[in-house]
C-alpha cells in the first residue's frame, strides 16, 4: 500500500502528552473527568488523525501536523498589553473573556457587571468549583459522532469559555470571547473547550475573535458545544485571523430544541490551515439554523468549511451560504451536508457555496450533499467556482475605475453578499472592514 492510501496518521505524540500530564490536567482528582479523558485518548488512538483517504477529510490533509514537534501550551506566557487585544466591537463595556494560548487571563477579561441572567466563566475555574451540571455538559451523550479531533480535545482540554444564559433572559450586549495565540520557537498545541447553553426563550449574541500575536506556530483544536433550549436564539459570529503559520481546527456541535434559532457566521482570514466543522442537530420542530461563512485566502493558505445539518424533527429549516476568494496557491474547501431523517417532514433546506478563484494556482473543492429520507421536503443546493465577472470588471473600468480597484470592489461585493445574508446587522460594517483590509494588503490585478 502506498503512503497516500493510509487511513490515519499516528497519534503517539498526543498519547505521550496525555501520559505525562494526566495527573496535572484540571480536575485530575475527579473520577468522572478522568474516565472521560481516558475514553477520549482511547477513541483517538482507535481512529488516528484522519488522512484524505477518509471521506470527510478528502480535501484537507493534516499530514503537516506530523512534522511539528508540538508541546502543550502552558498558562505562563507573558501577557500582551491590553490594547493589543483585538475586537470586532467598538464598545468597551461588553462582557469579555480573553484567553492566551487557551488559558483564561482574568487580567485582560471583563467579567464584572455581567448583564442579568448571564453566567460567564473559564472552564478550569468551573472544574475547580465542580458545579453539579458540569459533568452532564461535558460528557458525551452519544448524540454527535465522536471524531478524532473531538476525542483529542476531550482527552487534553484544560480551559475555555463557559456561558450560560438564564431562562427568558434577553441579553442585548454582545459577549466577546477572544482567543490569542502566542508561540515562541516551540509550536504549541492548544485544546480549548467552550460551552454555550441558552435557557428557554433567552437570546444572546456571542462573538469569537481568534488572533495570533507574532508569527509563532499554534495548533488550536477547539470544541464548542452549543445547546439551545426551546425558543432560544443565539447569534454566533467568529473572526479567525490567526498567524499564517498556525493551524485552526474548530469543531462546533449544536443542539437545537424546538422553536430555537442558531445563526452562525464565520469570517476566515488567517492560519496556514483552518477547518471549521459545524454539526447541527435540529431536534425539535420549528428549529431554524443559518450558517454563513466568508473566507479570504492567499499564499498557500488552506480553509475548509465542513457542515453537517441534521433535520430530526418536522417543520425545521436551514440555510447555508458560504462565499470566498482564493488567491495565489490558496485552497478552499466546502463540504456541506443536509440530512433529512425519516419522519422529519415539512423541511426546508437550502445551501449555497460560491468561490472566486483569483489566481491560476488557486483551487476550490466543493461537495454539497443532500441526504434525504422524507418526502415532504424542499431542499436545494448550489455551488459555483470561477473567476471575477469580466463584464462587470469591464463596466467598472469603462467608468474610469482602475483595474486593481475595480477588482477589489467586485471581490468585496462578492463577499458582502454572504455578510449581508448571514451576519447580524450590527457587525456587518466591522466584518466588511476586515475584508477591505485584506484586499488592501495586496493590490489586486497582479493576476
Amino acid at each position, binding site marked *: 500500500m502506498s503512503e497516500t492510501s493510509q487511513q490515519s496518521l499516528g497519534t503517539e505524540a498526543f498519547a505521550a502528552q496525555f501520559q505525562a500530564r494526566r495527573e496535572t490536567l484540571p480536575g485530575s482528582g475527579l473520577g468522572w473527568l478522568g474516565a472521560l479523558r481516558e475514553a477520549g485518548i482511547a477513541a483517538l488512538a482507535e481512529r488516528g488523525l484522519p488522512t484524505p483517504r477518509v*471521506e470527510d477529510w*478528502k480535501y484537507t490533509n493534516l499530514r503537516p501536523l506530523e512534522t511539528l514537534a508540538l508541546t502543550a501550551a502552558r498558562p505562563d506566557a507573558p501577557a500582551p498589553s491590553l490594547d493589543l487585544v483585538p475586537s470586532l466591537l467598538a464598545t468597551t463595556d461588553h462582557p469579555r473573556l480573553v484567553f492566551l494560548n487557551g488559558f483564561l487571563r482574568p487580567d485582560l477579561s471583563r467579567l464584572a457587571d455581567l448583564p442579568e441572567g448571564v453566567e460567564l466563566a473559564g472552564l478550569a475555574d468551573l472544574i475547580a468549583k465542580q458545579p453539579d451540571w458540569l459533568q452532564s455538559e461535558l460528557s458525551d451523550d452519544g448524540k454527535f459522532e465522536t471524531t478524532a479531533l473531538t476525542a483529542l480535545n476531550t482527552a487534553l482540554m484544560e480551559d475555555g469559555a463557559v456561558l450560560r444564559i438564564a431562562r427568558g433572559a434577553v441579553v442585548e450586549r454582545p459577549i466577546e470571547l477572544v482567543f490569542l495565540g502566542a508561540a515562541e520557537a516551540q509550536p504549541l498545541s492548544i485544546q480549548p473547550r467552550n460551552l454555550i447553553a441558552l435557557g428557554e426563550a433567552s437570546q444572546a449574541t456571542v462573538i469569537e475573535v481568534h488572533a495570533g500575536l507574532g508569527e509563532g506556530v499554534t495548533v488550536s483544536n477547539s470544541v464548542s458545544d452549543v445547546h439551545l433550549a426551546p425558543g432560544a436564539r443565539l447569534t454566533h459570529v467568529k473572526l479567525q485571523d490567526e498567524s499564517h503559520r498556525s493551524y485552526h481546527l474548530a469543531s462546533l456541535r449544536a443542539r437545537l430544541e424546538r422553536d430555537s434559532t442558531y445563526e452562525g457566521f464565520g469570517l476566515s482570514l488567517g492560519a496556514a490551515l483552518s477547518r471549521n466543522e459545524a454539526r447541527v442537530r435540529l431536534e425539535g420542530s420549528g428549529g431554524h439554523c443559518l450558517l454563513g461563512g466568508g473566507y479570504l485566502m492567499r499564499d498557500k493558505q488552506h480553509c475548509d468549511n465542513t457542515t453537517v445539518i441534521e433535520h430530526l424533527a418536522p417543520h425545521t429549516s436551514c440555510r447555508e451560504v458560504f462565499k470566498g476568494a482564493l488567491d495565489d496557491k490558496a485552497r478552499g474547501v466546502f463540504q456541506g451536508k443536509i440530512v433529512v431523517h*425519516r*419522519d422529519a*417532514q415539512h423541511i426546508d433546506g437550502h445551501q449555497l457555496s460560491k*468561490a472566486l*478563484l*483569483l*489566481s*491560476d*494556482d*488557486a*483551487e*476550490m*473543492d*466543493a*461537495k*454539497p*450533499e*443532500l*441526504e*434525504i*429520507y*422524507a*418526502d*415532504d*421536503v*424542499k*431542499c*436545494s*443546493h*448550489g*455551488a*459555483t*467556482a*470561477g*473567476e471575477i465577472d469580466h463584464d462587470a470588471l469591464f463596466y467598472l473600468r469603462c467608468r474610469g475605475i482602475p483595474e486593481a480597484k475595480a477588482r477589489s470592489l467586485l471581490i468585496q461585493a462578492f463577499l458582502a453578499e454572504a455578510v449581508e445574508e448571514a451576519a447580524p446587522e450590527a457587525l456587518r460594517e466591522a466584518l466588511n472592514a476586515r475584508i477591505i483590509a485584506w484586499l488592501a494588503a495586496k493590490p489586486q490585478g497582479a*493576476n
Partner: protein
Amino acid sequence: MAATSETIRQVQDIGERYKFGFVTDIESEMAPKGLNEDIVRFISAKKGDPDWLLEWRLKAFRLWQTMPEPEWAKVEFPEIDYQDAYYYSAPKMKDRPKSLDEVDPELLRTYEKLGIPLKEQEMLAGVAVDAVFDSVSVATTFKKKLEEVGVIFCSITEAIAEHPELVRKYLGSVVPYSDNKHATLNSAVFTDGSFVYVPKGVRCPMELSTYFRINAENTGQFERTLIIADEGSYVSYLEGCTAPMRDENQLHAAVVELVALDDAEIKYSTVQNWYPGDENGVGGIYNFVTKRGACRGRNSKISWTQVETGSAITWKYPSCVLQGDNSVGEFYSIAITNNRQQADTGTKMIHIGKNTRSRIISKGISAGKADQTYRGLVRMSNRASGARNYTQCDSLLIGDECGAHTVPYIESKNAAAQVEHEATTSRISEDQLFYCRQRGIDPEAAVALVVNGFCREVLQQLPMEFAVEAQKLVGISLEGSVG
C-alpha cells in the same frame, strides 16, 4: 394523502409490470462453476484469443484477487460469492451463424418477444442490432449495409479476430484493466460485447444498437463494448438490457469504452431494464458497470443518455475525459428506483483541454422503499482555461419511505473555468395532481404526466426508437407526442 398512496401504487405497478421476466428454454454450453485462472484460460480459449489478450486477462485476474470491494457507494448488499456463479454460458451452436437464417429460431423468437425482431425486413428501418445472449453475440444485423460505408459493427470476438490492430490499440486505453474491482473482473472474464469503428469523415447511416439479454441461471454477464469514432465521424449507439425474473441476484459487470478523435461525435444511449427484483427485494441484477468516454480529439463530443429503471442495484457512472481542446461531454440521466431497488449513479466530467464544456442533467425518482444517490465529479484541471460546466440534478420523492441523495464533488484548479451546480429535492406536488384530476385525468395518469414533464429534458435526448420504450418505462402513454 389519497393522491400520494395512488401515486405509490402507480409507481409500484411499473415494477410489477416487468414484462421481460420469461426464460428461454435453450441448451447452453457452460464453463464449470467458479472463478480461477483455469476459468479465465477456458474463456480465452473459447473465444480464440490471441496470446496478448490471454496475458492481459491473466494480469487483470491476478490483480483482481488482491483488490478490495469498492465501498464508497451508498448501496448495501451481502458479500458476493464470486465462486458461486458461472462465467461463461452460450447457447449451443456448432459455429457462429453466418447469417440470420442460421440462428436458432428459439433465439429469434426470444428477441421478437422482447420487441427486437432480428429479421431485417421486420426491423425498424435504420437500426442495426447486435444481439448478445448471455455470454455471446448471436446475431448482428445490417452488417453489409454498414460495410459499404466502411463502418465496422460486429461482436468484439469477431473484432479481435478480424481487426486485431484496432482492438489492441484501444482496448483498455480508456478504462485500464486496473481501473476498479468490477472493471478488472470484466477485463479478466469478458466474453463478448459489441465493437464499432467509424472511419474518418463518415456519418454512420443508421442507429447502432446492442440488445443484451441474460438468460441462464447463476450466470454473470461480462460484456465489453468498444466504440471508436475516427476524425470527423458521427455515430449514435443504443443499448437495451433485460433479464428473466429469478430469485437469485445475478452480476452484470460490463465495461464500455468510447474514443472520439478530432471533430468526432459519439452519442451513447442506454435503456436499462434488467430485472429489478420483486417488491421485497428478492432477486434482481447487480448492475456494476464502468462506462467511460475519452474525447481525445479537438472539438470532439461524447454524449451519454441513460434511462435506468431496472436492476436491484445500479452502480454506474458514465464519464467523459475531455482531453481535446473545445471538446464537449454531456450526461443526461433518468433513474427510477422503486420497491427495494438501490441506485448509486452519476457521472464524472474531467476537464483537461482548453475551452472544454460539459453539461449534466440528472433526474432521479425514488419511490417505495428505494434509495437513490446521484454521485458526480466535475474536475477542472489547471490547463482547462475557458472550460465550463453546468450541472442540474433534481430528485423527486414519492412516498415517505424512500430516500434520495445528492453527492456532487466539484474540484476546480483553474480560475478561468466556470463550474455551476444546482440541485433540488422535492416531492411530487399535490397541487399539480389536483389540477390534472380536475381536468378528468385519473391519479395514475396524472402522476405519469407530471413525472414525464419532470424527465422531459432527458427524454428529448433519446433517439426516437428508444424514446418510445423509455416513455413507456416511465409509465407514460405515447399519446404525449402531439405538439
